[in-house]
């Protein structure tokens, strides 16, 4: 790892001779090493799911939130340094509330996504601050809009997706998510699918670290209100995913 950008990676405001800003690329490393986060845009809303790695058995498992509500019609999940994520959540909430106060309507998805992206990008311009070490999966489903899913990266780019995966299991996650039919999938079905993607595909083999599934959605079922997916639904999906994982393991055993 050391020696990648020797000399040109000491500060955000330095370009390398081949046109790269290494500090920004190192930010992505922080995101890549975090617990998996996946999201999918369905026909009736958006679901985000996060693999929350629990560091201590003594920790109360409802803390260390990685999924946050931004406004009644918008929510997001953080991949990477969760403390950095909290700053972005506060900023997103401020943008959404100020927009509604001035313009009288809830903030549209693409406007909120671009505002967060511009904010993140600003921290890549100056030497006296460090960039954010987190990516944000933003979901917005306004009254007169289609459901939208955006990802904002530490460099400040923002893209709109049908589905996305961030963190450790992103390669496997993306491969699995590509198989889904987004225009036919409902959010209820997506909750199970995402649980399965995280538990079966994203989690590393043999990892015993205690983890929890945290899910957040905004969909027709929740009356277009952003909310944490009800615990019973998450537990049911988690159990389903664990069963699939075990049956996969059994199948592996049989092959041997």
């Amino acid at each position, binding site marked *: 790892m050391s020696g990648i950008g020797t000399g040109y990676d000491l500060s955000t405001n330095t370009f390398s001779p081949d046109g790269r800003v290494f500090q920004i690329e190192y930010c992505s490393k922080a995101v890549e090493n975090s617990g998996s986060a996946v999201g999918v845009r369905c026909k009736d809303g958006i679901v985000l799911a996060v693999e929350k790695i629990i560091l201590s058995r003594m920790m109360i498992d409802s803390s260390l939130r990685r999924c946050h509500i931004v406004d009644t019609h918008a929510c997001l999940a953080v991949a990477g340094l969760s403390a950095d994520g909290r700053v972005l959540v506060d900023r997103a909430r401020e943008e959404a509330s100020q927009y509604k106060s001035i313009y*009288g*309507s809830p903030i549209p998805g693409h*406007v909120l996504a671009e505002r967060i992206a511009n904010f993140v990008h600003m921290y890549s311009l100056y030497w006296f601050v460090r960039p954010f070490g987190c990516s944000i999966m933003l979901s917005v489903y306004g009254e007169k809009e289609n459901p939208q899913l955006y990802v904002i990266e530490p460099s400040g780019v923002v893209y709109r997706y049908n589905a996305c995966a961030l963190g450790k299991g992103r390669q496997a996650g993306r491969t699995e998510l590509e198989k889904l039919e987004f225009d036919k999938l409902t959010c209820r079905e997506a909750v199970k699918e995402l649980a399965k993607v995280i538990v079966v595909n994203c989690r590393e083999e043999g990892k015993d670290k205690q983890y929890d599934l945290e899910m957040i959605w905004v969909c027709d079922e929740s009356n277009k209100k952003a909310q944490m997916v009800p615990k019973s639904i998450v537990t049911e999906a988690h159990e389903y995913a664990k069963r699939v994982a075990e049956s996969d393991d059994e199948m592996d055993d049989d092959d041997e």
Partner: protein
Amino acid sequence: MELLQSTNHAVIPDWMSAEHSMGTSIMAVSFDGGVVMGADSRTTTGSYIANRVSDKITPITSQIYCCRSGSAADTQAISDYVRYYTDQHTIELNQEPRVKTVASLFRELCYANKANLMAGIICAGYDDIEGGQVYNITLGGSLVKQPFSIGGSGSTYIYGYCDSKFREGMSRDECMEFVTNSLALAMSRDGSSGGVIRLVVIEKSGVTRHFVPGNKLPTFWDQ
């Protein structure tokens, strides 16, 4: 201003240097697919009619207009600011703004500066999301959406008439007749309103302007 008055009292009477006010009768009615906006054309400084053919219906965007009453200077400044902010908002939004948004911007300015302004504005127009809409921004800076709205000093004389004549589901032409008759009555009773009736009809297909000259106004029992 005051210097002129004291030294040249005989040459420039005080009513010529009073603030330009739009006594005014303004009105807007929504129908399915658009709005009809109407206004008189009298601007006064004191009792002198500074402009007898003024246009009090001002565009903010191609499909959102406002009727202005109160101080002419204040309402022109406010609508210029709103047009500026709306233009910038449109760039970020990347689509035509909603009438609600423009009305909200009027409210922000009118409420925040209420101590220094005298402006009664009716903001109306068409957008694809909610169709024709009429919003009234009062002197204090409150914002209220209404099926139809009347404003200005002349409106006080036609509240009863409008309440009795208005029906839900009127057609475009019925709305135009309603506005024309209401404003004609207001103009005949209010000394600060008069001149011609200007009408602006805003629909999805576009904006059309109509004009009723002073000698062709609808007449009533006493004319």
